[in-house]
């Protein structure tokens, strides 16, 4: 939008035109925006508003959705500790998955960046390849490995005699966190990778020549420079993890509910659409606040250095 506006103003400057023509030139981009705007409104804004509206409707076991305005759903969420626990679990899982993805993903990106030509592309493909596979398939891999007595890893370890009972992975929070961290890893690697591209390749040599050791170079020179990449990768991973559906529903199952799986159940099992809508809206609002807030903090923190 700003590009097209600046082009028009340049044209206006180049060709001295009467004021009226000039103004029509300034409005010219708006009609061009209409198709995309209409699509955006139709598929994002309207459903979103309808969901918000839905969360204020009433629902009865025998009456279904009643089109009245009520705060009943919001009061239910507010007063029932079950929802607190569920939201706390959702954000705890997302937070832990983000931390794990950062701790493993940042070094992964750094090592990848230092690799030589043929290997670099090869391993980049290996890291990004999973994005081409459905998240359901990737998560089911974990289920195959650790699913109860018949999981491949559990079976093998028990056969060897290292463990007596299967490793508890399925239907545990730990399991969901590990699987989510794995599934989201490519986003973290990509984000850190992008930050590393901006690091001067000579900068490590510069620090080396000034007498810094490898650990100091990592801690004082490289890490501060890729921190914006880690943080923005963290925001992506956190948002995707907190709203993830497939992984928590496969690993966590019906027992270990998070916001997305709960909303799904309310919609499709209980058929209590208004309550499901309220949960979904609450998740959306919380995520927007967290993301916008942390983004603002990151931008302020690094504005001076990385403009």
């Amino acid at each position: 939008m700003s590009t097209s506006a600046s082009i028009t103003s340049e044209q206006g400057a180049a060709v001295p035109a009467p004021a009226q023509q000039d103004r029509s030139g300034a409005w010219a981009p708006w009609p061009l925006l209409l198709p995309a705007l209409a699509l955006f409104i139709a598929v994002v804004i309207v459903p979103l508003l309808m969901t918000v509206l839905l969360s204020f409707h009433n629902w009865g076991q025998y009456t279904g959705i009643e089109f009245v305005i009520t705060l009943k759903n919001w009061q239910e969420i507010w007063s029932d500790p079950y929802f607190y626990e569920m939201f706390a679990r959702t954000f705890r899982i997302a937070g832990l998955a983000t931390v794990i993805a950062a701790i493993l993903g940042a070094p992964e990106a750094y090592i990848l960046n230092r690799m030589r030509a043929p290997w670099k592309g090869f391993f980049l493909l290996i890291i990004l390849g999973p994005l081409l596979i459905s998240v359901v398939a990737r998560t089911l891999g974990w289920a195959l490995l650790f699913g109860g007595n018949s999981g491949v890893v559990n079976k093998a370890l028990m056969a060897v005699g290292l463990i007596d009972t299967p490793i508890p992975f399925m239907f545990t929070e730990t399991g969901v966190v590990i699987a989510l961290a794995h599934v989201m890893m490519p986003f973290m690697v990509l984000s850190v990778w992008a930050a590393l591209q901006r690091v001067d390749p000579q900068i490590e040599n510069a620090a080396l020549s000034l007498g810094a050791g490898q650990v100091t170079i990592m801690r004082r020179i490289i890490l501060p420079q890729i921190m914006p990449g880690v943080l923005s990768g963290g925001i992506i991973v956190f948002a995707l993890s907190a709203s993830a559906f497939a992984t928590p529903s496969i690993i966590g199952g019906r027992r270990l509910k998070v916001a997305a799986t709960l909303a799904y159940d309310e919609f499709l099992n209980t058929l209590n659409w208004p309550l499901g809508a309220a949960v979904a809206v609450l998740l959306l609002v919380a995520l927007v606040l967290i993301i916008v807030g942390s983004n603002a903090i990151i931008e302020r923190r690094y504005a001076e250095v990385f403009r």
Partner: protein
Amino acid sequence: MSFLELNRVSKHFGAHVAVEDITLSVNKGEFISLLGPSGCGKTTTLQMIAGFVELSSGAILLNGRDLGNVKPSKRGLGIVFQSYALFPHMTAAENIAFGLEMRGVPRAEREARVRDALAMVGLEGYADRYPRRMSGGQQQRVALARALVIKPDVLLLDEPLSNLDAKLREEMQIELRQIQRNIGTTTVLVTHDQTEAMALSDRIVVMSKGRIEQIGTPHETYERPASAFVSQFLGKTNEFPGEVDGDAVPPVVVAGSCRWPAPAGISGPVTITVRPEKVGFGSEVDKGLAARITNRIFQGNHWLFQCETECGPAIVIRQNTGEAQPVEGESVRLVWRTEDMGIRPRGMA
């Protein structure tokens, strides 16, 4: 005595020879330039001195001590990189203080030395600026201060001025030279810019294809180039084909309608070289090389003439002294002093 010594140093990357058998000794306090086109091995040589690249063979000695097993972080060299490689997340002062911090210099002394270093490069008041907020020239000064504040034995400069615009580059050349003279740090500069090498160095090492072509003062390398490569790389040179007439007594070199006394020990076909600014315009009686001016270009302080001589094309540079100059299409005679011309057997590089 020699302070920094490169003894038969070579570097091979697989089958590719980057540096071949380089021997060089740099005196304490000397400013030396490694000059050559890209790919001549000058940067590899610098990186071997810095320790970023290992030698394939040979040895590098600093003050009599073999650097072979000394880690780059322990060599105590100051390096200014082409990209400056400043730490973008640190202020100018923090950048400069980094090397001192690594050496465990106490805070008070550190601050004093950083202040002095900033003053030395004329950046007082910029201590708290971040590199991205500084101009190229200012960043360059910070990089120089960062390299010098640790009082390095040797200062290595890797094309430090190539990212600056022409005017700023000239200013920085003068300043760099002055700073280096004041503190007397032994300096090795890598550059592909022959005017920069001449303006700054005590001695120039001209390199080509991984080998040293010539080592000498700027004046020597320009006036008495050891090879065709050096004469062509350092400034412009006219070349004419000639022939030694051994039957004449004494022997003479013949080119077109001209003849000059031949140097001893040369016979057969030769190449005559002469710098364009050493060539003058003579009259018919001067018996110079017959030429016609095809192009005349005014360049402010001098004129540039492109000529077609009886022995091929030539260029002539004349100072703009205000005197009348020949015009395009005019027939002239090109004359020069015998001592200004070089004669070497043809076919020899």
